[in-house]
C-alpha cells in the first residue's frame, strides 16, 4: 500500500486551476521528484502535501491516515525551503533545535538530536554561528538538518539546489541523496531542472498544467516519453511532427515535410493519425558518403558546429528546411559547418508517439 497517497486533489485560485484532479502514490523510503516547467502546479502540490494549501477537493493520506484537514504543524512533515528560510535571529543549533523545542522534548534529548543531525549533514563545529555567517551550501545543510531533526514522516524539498552555484549543486545533490538513504526517509522534491530529477530521483512524476503526465523511473521516462510534452522537456531530442503512413508490429513510419521517418512505437497507432518522431540527439549520428535517403537516413547540411568539450553539437538542416541536431563524442566529430553529410539513427532509437491532436 502506498505510504503517501494523493487522491484526485484539485486546487484552484480564482478561475485558474493550479492542480487538476491529481493522483499520485509514493512508496515508503523512495525519493520521488515532481518535475515540470514553472507554473505547472508542482510547488502547489508540494505545499498541499505540507498543509499550507488547502485543496478544493480530493484527499491526502499519509501512512494510511487522512491528513487533508490537519494543519501543517501537526503533520510531522519536514520541509526544506527554496531560500532555506533559516531563522536569522537564531544560531545554527537553535535553528535545528526549533522543531524539538516546539515538541517540548527534554533538553538532553534535544542536544543529542541536534548534534546527530548536524553530524549527518557534516556541519559539526558551526553550531554557534548565525545563518548569515554561513555560505550558501552550509545554509542548505542547516535547512536539511533542521527538517530531519524532527524525525519527520515525510521530507519535502522545494527546488533544493536552485540557489547554489553549479559546482556546489553536484555536491549537494549527492549529499541530499546520501542523507535521505541514511535516514531512510520518504522524500519528495520539486524541480524544474531535468538533470537534477534524472540524477536524484528513484521515480519522477512529470507535471504539466496541473496534471501528472507520466510517472516512472528516470531511465524509463528518458527512453520512453509518453507524451510529446515530455519528449520536448526531457533530454535533447529531435522532435518531428507528421502523420502516420505505416504502422505494424511495433514499428511505424511517419511522413513529415517530405521526409519519411521510421521508428518503433509502444502505443497503437493508426494510419493517418498525427504523430511525433522523437530522436535523441545523442543517438543521432553524422556520416560522410552519398547515401540515399531512406527511413533512418536524411541527407543534411551542417549549419552550426558547437564544441562542448567531451561532445560536439551539430545543428543541421535538410533540403526542405527540417532542422535536426546530433550530439557526438568529440573523437568522432570531424565534420565542419557547411559540409553535406548524412544524419542517421537506428530504428530502436527513434520513438514514434501519438501527437497532441
Amino acid at each position, binding site marked *: 500500500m502506498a505510504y503517501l497517497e494523493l487522491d484526485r486533489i484539485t486546487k484552484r485560485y480564482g478561475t485558474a486551476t493550479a492542480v487538476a484532479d491529481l493522483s499520485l502514490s509514493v512508496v515508503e523510503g523512495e525519493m520521488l521528484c515532481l518535475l515540470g516547467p514553472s507554473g505547472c502546479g508542482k510547488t502547489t502540490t508540494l505545499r498541499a502535501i505540507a498543509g499550507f494549501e488547502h485543496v478544493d477537493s480530493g484527499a491526502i493520506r499519509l501512512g494510511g491516515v487522512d491528513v487533508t484537514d490537519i494543519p501543517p504543524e501537526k503533520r510531522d512533515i519536514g520541509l526544506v525551503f527554496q531560500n532555506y528560510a533559516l531563522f536569522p535571529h537564531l544560531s545554527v543549533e537553535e535553528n535545528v533545535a*526549533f522543531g524539538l523545542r516546539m515538541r517540548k522534548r527534554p533538553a538532553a534529548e534535544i542536544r543529542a538530536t541536534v548534534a546527530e543531525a548536524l553530524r549527518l549533514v557534516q556541519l559539526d563545529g558551526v553550531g554557534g554561528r548565525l545563518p548569515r555567517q554561513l555560505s550558501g551550501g552550509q545554509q542548505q545543510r542547516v535547512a536539511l538538518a533542521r527538517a530531519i531533526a524532527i524525525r519527520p514522516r515525510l521530507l519535502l524539498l522545494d527546488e533544493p539546489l536552485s540557489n547554489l552555484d553549479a559546482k556546489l549543486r553536484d555536491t549537494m545533490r549527492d549529499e541530499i541523496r546520501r542523507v535521505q538513504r541514511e535516514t531512510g526517509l520518504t522524500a519528495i522534491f520539486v524541480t524544474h531542472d531535468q538533470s537534477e530529477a534524472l540524477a536524484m530521483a528513484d521515480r519522477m512524476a512529470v507535471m504539466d498544467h496541473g496534471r501528472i503526465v507520466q510517472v516512472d523511473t528516470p531511465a524509463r521516462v528518458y527512453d520512453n516519453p509518453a507524451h510529446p510534452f515530455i519528449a520536448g522537456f526531457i533530454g535533447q531530442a529531435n522532435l518531428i511532427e507528421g502523420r502516420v503512413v505505416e504502422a505494424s508490429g511495433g514499428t511505424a513510419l511517419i511522413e513529415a515535410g517530405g521526409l519519411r521517418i521510421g521508428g518503433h512505437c509502444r502505443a497503437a497507432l493508426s494510419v493517418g493519425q498525427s504523430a511525433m518522431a522523437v530522436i535523441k540527439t545523442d543517438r543521432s549520428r553524422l556520416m560522410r558518403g552519398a547515401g540515399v535517403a531512406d527511413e533512418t537516413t536524411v541527407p543534411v547540411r551542417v549549419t552550426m558546429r558547437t564544441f562542448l568539450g567531451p561532445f560536439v553539437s551539430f545543428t543541421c538542416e535538410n533540403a526542405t528546411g527540417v532542422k535536426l541536431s546530433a550530439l557526438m563524442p568529440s573523437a568522432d566529430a570531424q565534420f565542419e559547418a557547411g559540409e553535406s553529410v548524412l544524419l542517421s539513427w537506428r530504428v530502436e532509437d527513434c520513438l514514434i508517439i501519438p501527437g497532441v491532436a
Partner: protein
Amino acid sequence: MKALRGLGIGWLVLVLIFLLGPTLVVLVDSINSATSFPSPFEQATLRWYRALGEHEEFLDAAINSVEIALASSAIATLCAFLGGFALSRRRVRFGHAISTAMLSPLFIPEIVIGLAILQVLGLVALPLSMLTLIVAHAVFVLPMALRLTLSGFSRFDFGLLDAARSLGANPARAMLAVTLPILRPSLIAGFTLSAVFSFVNLPLSMFLTTPRTATLPVVVFAYMESRIDPMIAALATLVVLIAAAATIGVDRFLRIRILD
C-alpha cells in the same frame, strides 16, 4: 579636496549650532543667577533647580506625562505590530487605504485632532479622564510606531512563518518565537519615538487634560502665561537631558538605530 573638506566641516558646525544653539542658551540660563529671563550671565547657581523642588505641580505633571507616554506608546506599538503584520502580508483588502488611514494623524494638525476628539467625547458623553487622554495620545503617536514597524516588516521573510509551522509551531507560537524577536528592534525604536512624541505633546493635551491629568507641557505652558523665570529653563534642561539619555541609551545599549 582639502578645501572642500574644510567647507564641509564648517557647514556641519553651522548646522549643529543652528540645531543645538537654542538648547545651549536654555542650559546656560538655567544656571544663571540673574532673576529675569533671558539676561546676560552673572554667576553660576543651582537655585533654580532647588526652586523646582518646591513646585510639586511640576513633578505631578511629569509623572502624568511619563505614565501617558508609556501607556499610549504601548498601545500604539501593539496596534502597529499587529496592523503592520497584516498590511505587510498583503492579504488585506483595501490594505493601502487602511495604512493611509492609520498614518493620517501625521498630516492633520494636532489642534484639529484635539478639538475633534473633545467633540466626539462630548457627543458620546464620555468624561475626560486619564484613559481618554491615553487613547488620544495612542492615536496621535500611532503613525510613528507604524512607520518603523512597516519598515521592519518590509525586510521580513514571511516564509519563516511557514518554516516555523512545518516544524510544529501553531500560528500564535510562530508569531512569538519568530516574528516578535525579528521585529524587536523596529518595535523598540517605534515605542521610543512614540513615547518622546507623546511626552512633548502640547496641543492635543491642552484640549483633553483636566487639572488632575495635566501633563508637563500643559503645566509649563500655563505657568509661562503668567511669568517667565529661569526655573522653566532648569525644567527644560532636565527634560532635554533625560530625553537625550533615553534616546542614546536605546541607541547604544540595545544597538537599535532609532534615527535610521
